[in-house]
């Protein structure tokens, strides 16, 4: 197999196209791949962070004013229904960006994260038992302090579950953006497919999958640990 | 009749839930299993319909070993009522009640009709039929649970703390109606409860179980109160045993004091004329007691008005003639005038009785009548 085709980048040491060569591929293209990995991490996390910041007050509103909950759920449900790639593409004309502006990715993913997290925050706050709320108010907690000191800590497990879903799914969604030219690990798949003529060239594809799974796992585990750290009372109960 | 023969249930980790239990629950009677947590009462109950299988020993229903029949067939012939009713949330009330007949293959229409009859029997209006369990209160759900258990007319019913999850007022109502039902239906019932008062109230016979699954005593409620078998039973049955035992003592026909009564709307002056010791009983036109009126110590000017409902003292319970000594004593003790009101079966006023008269009657009872009733 001589296969030196018109390729984006030269193959360094022959054409080792087996799947297990992904580590070697990584080493050959380390600079570019690390750049993509960083972009991918950033694009996965930032929307969730912003999304959470927006969802906290919105979710609180939905709890405080009962009538807000149904329409909010309808709207966020609608947004969540739209496939991510469609959302990526629709954002630029709506926000006045050029059609393949990389900014569409974080914007669309923030919308997505908000759509998911508003409901999670609202339900997390709803999971606080009523008598706890009453007791806190009777003890003299003002509304805001009660939210911060009582309701949010108790809602943490539910919100953490939502954050896990949001971050892990974002990893996949960002990769999708790679198919329309955005800079992230999805580009590895793009490379893989282009390099796969005439025979299959696995390394970038496998590398992409491995890195995505690793990234998703790291996010997931981190949130689980943070959740545990933030809820010491649950561990105490479990240990009884 | 349900017979336990040396039934034991031991779990793999070594805990013994039921230890060599042998007893007989007679047909047509309510046998109550009662005891503290961990005494194996629920486990024993659930071994009857094989929700749990015994480690050793056998259970017989009408002399047939329960293990000789398939489990589902066995259960379709036993009514099963549990604590929160366990109604199917996805079915209407009437469909819930008709479950077992439909399982047995009965005609759909007939099953529905019977379900409606049963709803009436347990005291629920027909408008409930099309509702869903989530729309019903706890007490209503429990009644549906009982109706559902009765639907296929099983001879045996197993009830596991059916009235524990409702508030005391509703519980008392359910217990009353349950007794009324049993008067009509005469089912063989095994009833589990942790509440000794409920056991004494409902049971024809009561089995007191001890932690570890031992049978401490099996006896009628009166016997249990009068002769607890050991210290555990005595402690479990609780205090005020002598007083509570009076609830099972038939008073017989008590001689009553004839008492003049007043009615609503009379002049107070006229009422005072008939009052005895400053109190007069006020009744309505059909001689149904309404309350006591205190007239002692009222000045002449205050006596210018009439007997009104607002001025009545409603303290004092009513005792039915021919009822228990306990009811009589309570009527006398709770009455503000010191005279207990006695009525007939329809609630019409018959006469009054004082506490000392009741006490005399109590002490007149021979040792046999007092405690050794079987």
């Amino acid at each position, binding site marked *: 197999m001589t296969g030196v085709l018109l390729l984006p980048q030269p193959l360094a040491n022959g054409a080792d196209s087996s799947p297990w060569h992904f580590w070697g591929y990584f080493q050959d293209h380390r600079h570019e791949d690390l750049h993509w990995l960083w972009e991918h991490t950033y694009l996965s996390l930032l929307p969730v962070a912003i999304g959470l910041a927006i969802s906290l007050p919105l979710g609180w509103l939905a709890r405080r004013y009962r009538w807000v909950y149904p329409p909010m759920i309808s709207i966020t449900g609608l947004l969540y229904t739209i496939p991510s790639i469609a959302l990526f593409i629709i954002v630029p004309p709506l926000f006045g960006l050029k059609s393949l502006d990389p900014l569409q990715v974080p914007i669309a993913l923030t919308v*997505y994260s908000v759509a998911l997290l508003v409901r999670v925050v609202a339900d997390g706050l709803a999971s606080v038992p009523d008598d706890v709320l009453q007791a806190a108010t009777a003890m003299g907690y003002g509304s805001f302090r009660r939210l911060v000191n009582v309701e949010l800590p108790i809602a943490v497990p*539910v919100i953490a579950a939502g954050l896990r879903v949001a971050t892990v799914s*974002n990893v996949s969604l960002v990769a999708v953006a790679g198919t329309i030219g955005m800079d992230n690990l*999805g580009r590895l798949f793009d490379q893989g497919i282009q390099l796969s003529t*005439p025979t299959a060239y696995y390394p970038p594809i496998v590398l992409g999958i491995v890195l995505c799974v690793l990234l*998703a796992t790291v996010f997931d585990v981190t949130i689980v640990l943070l959740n545990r750290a933030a809820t010491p009372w649950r561990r105490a109960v479990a240990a009884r | 009749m349900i017979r336990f023969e040396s039934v034991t249930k031991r779990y793999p980790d070594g805990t013994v839930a039921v230890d060599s239990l042998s007893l007989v629950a007679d047909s047509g009677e309510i046998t109550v299993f009662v005891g503290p947590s961990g005494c194996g009462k629920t486990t024993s109950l659930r071994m009857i319909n094989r929700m749990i299988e015994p480690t050793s020993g056998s259970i017989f229903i009408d002399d047939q070993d329960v293990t000789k029949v398939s489990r589902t067939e066995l259960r379709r012939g036993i009514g*099963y009522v549990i*604590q929160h009713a*366990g109604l199917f949330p996805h079915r209407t009330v009437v469909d819930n009640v008709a479950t077992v007949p439909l399982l047995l293959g009965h005609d759909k229409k007939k099953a529905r009709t019977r379900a409606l009859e049963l709803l009436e029997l347990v005291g629920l209006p027909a408008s409930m039929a099309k509702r869903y369990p*989530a729309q019903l209160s706890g007490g209503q759900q429990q009644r549906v649970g009982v109706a559902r258990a009765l639907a296929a007319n099983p001879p045996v019913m197993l009830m596991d703390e059916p009235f524990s999850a409702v508030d005391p007022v509703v519980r008392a109502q359910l217990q009353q109606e349950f007794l009324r039902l049993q008067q009509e239906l005469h089912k063989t019932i095994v009833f589990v409860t942790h509440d000794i008062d409920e056991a004494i109230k409902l049971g024809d016979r009561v089995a007191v179980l001890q932690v570890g699954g031992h049978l401490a005593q099996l006896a009628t409620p009166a016997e249990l109160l009068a002769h607890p078998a050991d210290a555990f039973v005595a402690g479990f049955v609780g205090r005020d045993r002598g007083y509570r035992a009076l609830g099972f003592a038939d008073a017989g026909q008590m001689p009553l004091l004839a008492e003049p009564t007043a009615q609503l709307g009379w002049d107070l002056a006229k009422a005072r004329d008939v009052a005895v010791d400053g109190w007069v009983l006020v009744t309505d036109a059909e001689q149904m007691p309404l309350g006591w009126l205190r007239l002692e110590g009222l000045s002449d000017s205050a006596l210018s008005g009439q007997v009104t409902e607002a001025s009545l003292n409603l303290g004092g319970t009513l005792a039915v003639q021919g009822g228990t000594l306990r009811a009589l004593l309570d009527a006398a003790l709770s009455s503000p005038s010191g005279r207990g009101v006695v009525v007939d079966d329809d609630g019409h006023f018959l006469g009054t009785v004082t506490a000392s008269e009741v006490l005399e009657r109590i002490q007149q009872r021979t040792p046999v009548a007092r405690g050794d009733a079987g």
Partner: protein
Amino acid sequence: MISQVFTWLNDPAHWRDSPVFTGIPTQLLNHLRYSLVAMAIAVAIALPLGLVIGHTGRGTWAVAGINAVRAIPGVGLLVLLAVVISPHFHGRTDLGYLLPTEIVLVVIAIPPVLANTYAGVQNVDPEVRDAASGMGMTGAQVLRRVELPCSLPLIFSGIRSATLQVIATATIASYLPLLGGLGRFIYDGFHQQDYPQMISGGVLVALLAVIVDLLLAGVQRYAVSPGISGRYSRRTFRSTGPATAAVVQAEVSPA
């Protein structure tokens, strides 16, 4: 740009098939076809599996394991399988890309349906289950007559979630050359820098997803007993609390 998109969508030429262009209706049908086949297979596998695991309580490792599949990027799997499978299909070019697509779609659809079905059965009130067997229902009868109807809300939630993911991934599948579906407009538009076409594709996909979800919601309304959904005259509004966490876990967003 927005007006250009409208123009593109209103152009009758785009609604007809021609030698150089496959029209919107055909692509729509293609898209539906790919999605329906995958959903049918996934539900046929995951629904009974979830019911049995939930009912017997055995094999929960399978649910946890299959859930881990969600961490795999759909695009990556798609490309991997395409690269493996398509060389074997020279000549039957459509199938070469269709097969990996369908495989990936099924793999993506199974976790939400399985997880939600399992959660649905598990969440049935144990007292209700106890009453059902105590009355003499066989295990299969308890499953069919009690556990299944009571689990329907969560099962539908899982099916809806899976359907959305399938529709979304089928869109991305058009990244592979020659494959039909509404994503074709997106990727052709991308490659040709024909942005009105690309954005129109996005709009069409969004509309499809929303309409399908509404339809499924309608079916759910009809199929779930009012006793469970709470849709009876006495309106009690309750926002569910912790139960949502289970559903949230199941509802990974579309790829």
